């Protein structure tokens, strides 16, 4: 599925990646959040470390909490963040 999505990064994740948000072009082989995470990890060592599979990570698609299996498509807003600590 191709087209662009908006990716937002919050809290510690934003600091570690030094990036608040970006417009990301979806390659044809990216259908869900797991595919997206793999594509981001492929960017290099820092991305691979910060988004490592054994690190706690939460995510949202179009402002709804989601999981790696959640499908994504062009035009979506996706957010990646550490486990929440509100309240």
């Amino acid at each position, binding site marked *: 599925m191709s087209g662009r999505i908006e990716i937002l990064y919050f*809290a510690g994740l934003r600091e570690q990646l030094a990036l608040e948000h970006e417009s990301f072009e979806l390659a044809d082989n990216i259908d869900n959040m797991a595919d997206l995470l793999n594509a981001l990890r492929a960017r290099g060592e820092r991305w691979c470390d910060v988004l490592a599979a054994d690190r706690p990570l939460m995510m949202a698609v179009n402002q709804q*909490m989601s999981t790696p299996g959640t499908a994504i498509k062009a035009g979506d807003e996706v957010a990646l963040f*550490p486990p929440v600590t509100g309240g």
Partner: protein
Amino acid sequence: MTTDIRVQAGDFDAGKVIDSIRQGRTDIGAIACFVGLVRDLPDKRLLHMTLEHYPAMTEQALREIAEHANERWHLQHVSVIHRYGELKPSDQIVLVSVAAEHRRAAFESCEFIMDYLKTGAPFWKKETTEYGSHWVEARATDTESRRRWEKD
């Protein structure tokens, strides 16, 4: 159920929130209210706590939690006010107030909403001391508290 969900930087007055829930109604039997505060560090060295949030998502996430509670208990009203920005020790962070006909629904749903808010509302806390700042880590006990509702 009516709701009043607010995400704001400014402080709130729990008494005024309760008054506004009661206003013009005679059908409410119980109002339960929880207020979460900024607690100092054991060595009393917290300079401030900063709350970051995901603006486009927070209000809707809190509203869905309130609606989830209403599916489980019959509620008359839910108010949730959550602050963001820079707060000091003893400052108020969050208010959850629930109105119901009887106390059991009010007490239990108030706790339910807090347990779901702690694990599902997109806020992140950062603590600052004279030595610098660090992000607060999520607690396993919060996840357990939420899971407890899923078993019942």
